[in-house]
């Protein structure tokens, strides 16, 4: 009997410790001291430069919200400050899962924000499925909210999907480039892409769009490369043999900038290169330098180009003041994501994850840094937004020795017309 009592006492003690441990952020009156927001980002590993931008933007948003006292939660009748808890995916699907599990179980986060790289995010969203609202700000695969084997009702896709940007990129090639270089034949397009879920997703989506719309585009080369590749010479030599009119690259900053440089400088493939939006990062412009002159970048946030939204100026200023560097695109999505999480908690009036999830779903608010069709943040049936996609052309400024972009599409934001790069050679 004594042994049973001793066992019960130990169990009671453990339970007490666990209960109190879960309440470390709660004051005596039961009002939480902080609202924990989980940031899921690659803070180390191959994509850590992007993860760092996401973190810096998130910190900025949290500080701005907390400067006003935090988020008003009706259930407690007070404003509660936000606390950003970092979950480092280490740019790895396995480590990402561990990071998200820790955020959910140990840190008791109300909302998750972030998630970069489709392959990594498709893995790390699994522990959050059906439990924790996750505002995904950096994974382009539409599968993150459309997969069917897990409950995706808590996931919200706050960035463009691969489908979103295939369309304007390909339309640009047909509407703008083709009349200039291949008016009487199909445009010869070469694809070079990362051999991962992201690269394959963009390429599959692009190929499907070309076929479904019978676009006058001939795919003359399709090269995939390992994600850790740094030497693109042979891939580009093979592409050069196919004589393309343009090269569509799907990769991250390090690989894409290498493709642009090695292609023009070493292989002599003087064509038009198009990069996808995850390259909208200060490092991309810096690495490219003069080799980016006349080349293209698809984006949905252009801090180096025009100040096309009222928030752009103050955001750039605050980011520069705090971090002494220019903001990148993934950070902008994350910044919006934190504000969206705060607004949803306030509208829910509770820290209950299901109520917060419902509040995110019902969002209908003014757009922020990411411009959206219709001007408001809303989520469709797939919990996706409809961002406005830009095409930027970069130009090398001899005086300042800087590479700067201008917006050439869409027409509503256009700063100047597209021109062929000086070294451009027609394919075919």
């Amino acid at each position: 009997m004594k042994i049973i009592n001793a066992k019960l006492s130990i169990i009671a003690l453990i339970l007490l410790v666990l209960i109190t441990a879960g309440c470390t952020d709660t004051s005596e009156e039961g009002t939480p001291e902080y609202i924990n927001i989980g940031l899921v980002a690659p803070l180390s590993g191959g994509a850590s430069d992007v993860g760092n931008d996401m973190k810096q933007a998130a910190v900025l948003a949290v500080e701005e919200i907390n400067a006003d006292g935090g988020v008003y939660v009706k259930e407690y009748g007070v404003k509660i400050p936000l606390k950003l808890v970092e979950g480092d995916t280490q740019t790895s699907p396995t480590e990402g899962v561990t990071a998200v599990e820790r955020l959910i179980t140990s840190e008791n986060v109300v909302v998750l924000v972030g998630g970069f790289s489709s392959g990594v995010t498709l893995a790390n969203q699994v522990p959050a499925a059906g439990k924790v609202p996750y505002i995904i700000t950096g994974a382009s695969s539409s599968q993150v909210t459309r997969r069917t084997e897990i409950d995706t009702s808590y996931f919200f896709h706050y960035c463009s999907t691969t489908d979103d940007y295939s369309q304007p990129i390909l339309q640009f090639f047909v509407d703008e480039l083709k009349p200039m270089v291949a008016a009487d034949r199909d445009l010869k397009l070469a694809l070079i892409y990362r051999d991962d879920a992201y690269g394959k997703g963009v390429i599959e989506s692009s190929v499907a769009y070309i076929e479904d719309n019978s676009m006058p585009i001939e795919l003359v080369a399709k090269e995939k490369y390992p994600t850790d590749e740094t030497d693109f010479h042979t891939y580009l030599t093979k592409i050069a043999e196919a004589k393309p009119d343009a090269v569509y690259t799907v990769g991250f900053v390090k690989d894409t900038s290498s493709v642009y440089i090695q292609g023009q400088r070493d292989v002599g493939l003087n064509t038009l290169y198009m990069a996808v939006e995850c390259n909208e990062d200060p490092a991309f412009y810096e690495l490219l330098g003069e080799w980016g002159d006349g080349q293209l970048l698809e984006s949905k946030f252009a801090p180096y180009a025009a100040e096309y939204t009222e928030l752009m100026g103050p955001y750039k200023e605050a980011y520069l003041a705090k971090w002494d560097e220019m903001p990148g695109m993934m950070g902008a999505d994350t910044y919006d994501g934190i504000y969206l999480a705060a607004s949803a908690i306030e509208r829910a009036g509770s820290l209950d994850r299901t109520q917060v999830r419902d509040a995110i779903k019902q969002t209908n608010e003014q757009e922020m840094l990411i411009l959206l069709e219709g001007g408001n943040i809303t989520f469709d049936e797939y919990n996706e937004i409809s961002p406005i996609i830009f095409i930027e052309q970069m130009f090398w400024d001899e005086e300042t020795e800087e590479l700067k972009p201008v917006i050439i599409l869409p027409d509503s934001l256009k700063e100047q017309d597209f021109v062929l790069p000086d070294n451009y050679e027609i394919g075919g």
Partner: protein
Amino acid sequence: MTEITTLLQIFIWGLTAGCIYVLMAVGLNMIFGVMKVVNFAHGEIMMLGAFASFGLYYYTGLNPYFLMLFSMVIIGVFGVIIERFGFRKVLGTGKLNEIFLSLGLIYILQNAAVKLWTDDIRKINSPYSSMTLDLGVLNITYDRIIAIAFTALILISLYLFLIRTDVGRALRATSQNHEAAMLMGVNVNHMYMLSFGIGSALAASAGTVHAILSPFNPYMGTIPGIMAFTVIIIGGLGSIPGAIIAGLMLGLVQNFTIFYFGGAWKEAVAFVLLIIVLVIRPTGIFGEEH
């Protein structure tokens, strides 16, 4: 039908990639040959070499090829320190200890590099980056020519050092038979330090060449490190000529594989080559049976 100029171009790309493998593998073989230690952190030593050159370049703005010599010395000294205070302590206590020490070093060096230089992507601007040599049938950038020439120069210097100097002879003697070398008055511990220093300096040169040709970050050493191991097994453990032949062969085979079969096969073909060589000659091309 592929044009001859295209094949020549791929030959040049393969040769340059092979030069980096050769510098890595020869360094690794120097260490293994003399100490019989397998250093899995050799790729990370290469990365430190790239960052040492980058740091020197950033603060002085001098020609990176000139600065490479200084980074080779710095990393060489660093290698000596690692040997003296790391590998020496576990030498002879069991292979597992040596393996886990070098595996631990991978993480320590990567994290230290992130702490010192952050994860940002870096590049070293060569003054010759826009210059090409017109050979009529194809153009080759000066940086590639320098990379190939530099590798040849380093290997010739190493060969002369090992063949013509007393220290070189002592190193070779230690590599062949520790006990006999000791009986002949060779300070084996000094030879250990020297081999680790030379091996690390060679990795630093590989890192600098890599950093001049491509952007890099603290994780750049992982794949070249693995490939260097493949090269020394193909060439024969401890054999420097084997490392040179196998390194160039691997660079060429990988690049022609990308061209004919696609990038997905790039890393796989290295292991296909490894299996073929081991089936035909289990000791590697120049390996000796013990």
